[in-house]
């Protein structure tokens, strides 16, 4: 089935291959370069992940200070790593997230995980897509799970009837599904009505992933504007 259909219809998300690995590898190198850990661990992403897995939250935050430099071009790099697919979904003229996110998840049950949620909760427009990619192979449950669009919509409508959205029914869903084990060079693209989240995982490695949101600039906006988005034209 066409990726476009998978993302917009059922199941609302698709696993795809990054088109330009040169850019994506550069992105990962830039992440490692800007990470504040001893130099000897920076040569290999898995060595870095082991170091991060041992850190406290405060230490991780401190190690991320240099990320401001890394994050500066992250959005463009991510978008440019999958130009054909993005063009197919949205055309060339885009609104992209001004500052893409890098998330670091540390293993262990005690660490807070991302509750199940719709990406719509932040006020992005319904025409937005989310592009999520790990910076390494996922060999454990440290990834993100997605719940098919049909189920997600059913729950949304049920909650809406009760005068609620993304309420306890959704929040309690955490852990019902296992995250797929993506390889480095794969990404998940999904629409903002798909429920997703992650679960606590056991591993000696931290999980590092980047994500960016984008939409066509010919489609309407909702609450997010220049505070969150910027204009970008695919070359």
């Amino acid at each position: 089935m066409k990726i476009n259909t998978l993302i917009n219809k059922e199941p609302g998300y698709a696993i795809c291959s990054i088109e330009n690995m040169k850019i994506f590898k550069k992105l990962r190198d830039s992440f490692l370069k800007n990470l504040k850990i001893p130099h000897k661990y920076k040569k290999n992403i898995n060595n870095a992940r082991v170091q991060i897995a041992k850190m406290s939250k405060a230490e991780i935050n401190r190690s991320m200070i240099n990320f401001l430099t890394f994050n500066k071009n992250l959005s463009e790099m991510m978008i440019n790593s999958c130009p054909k697919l993005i063009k197919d979904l949205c055309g060339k003229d885009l609104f992209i997230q001004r500052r893409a996110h890098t998330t670091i998840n540390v293993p262990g049950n005690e660490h807070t995980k991302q509750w199940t949620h719709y990406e719509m909760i932040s006020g992005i427009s319904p025409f937005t897509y989310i592009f999520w990619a790990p910076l390494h192979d996922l060999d454990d449950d440290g990834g993100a799970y997605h719940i098919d669009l049909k189920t997600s919509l059913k729950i949304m409508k049920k909650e809406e009837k009760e005068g609620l959205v993304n309420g306890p029914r959704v929040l309690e869903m955490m852990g019902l599904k296992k995250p797929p084990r993506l390889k480095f060079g794969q990404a998940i693209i999904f629409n903002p009505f798909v429920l997703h989240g992650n679960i606590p995982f056991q591993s000696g490695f931290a999980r590092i992933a980047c994500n960016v949101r984008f939409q066509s600039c010919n489609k309407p906006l909702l609450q997010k504007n220049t505070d969150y988005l910027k204009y970008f034209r695919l070359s």
Partner: protein
Amino acid sequence: MTIAIINTDMNIGPFRIPGNGQNMITNNYAERNNFKVEEIIPEPFKSRSLATTQWVHKKKRLKIVILCSIHQLPLEKKRIKDLVNNMKKVEFHFALEGISGKGKRFLLDCIQEAKIFKDARIIDSQKTSWSKLYKIKNSKKY
């Protein structure tokens, strides 16, 4: 050489930010960037020309100005020309967008980006619901 924050009308493009809210945003931005704010410039209600700022610049030679958003920049040709000519040496910071720079090119790029967003359609979130938004997503009308 002065560092100033600029307050304008509360209608800032798609945002509505009251004066004290603008102060909080720009002062917090200044603090995070270690800027010592020496001047608060109040632009009049309903004005979008940044004329007071340009007048203050002539008197005090501003070095850095901090605004909430690129949506506070002028839209009219003549006003844009005045601003760019008079303030091309001043460093502009926009707290919500988190961008900064100076010179004609930078200011014109910011104004152009604000215009692209101004021209984009906006769904009124107060008049819709989650399921309506899902329908909108699939509707050919948009």
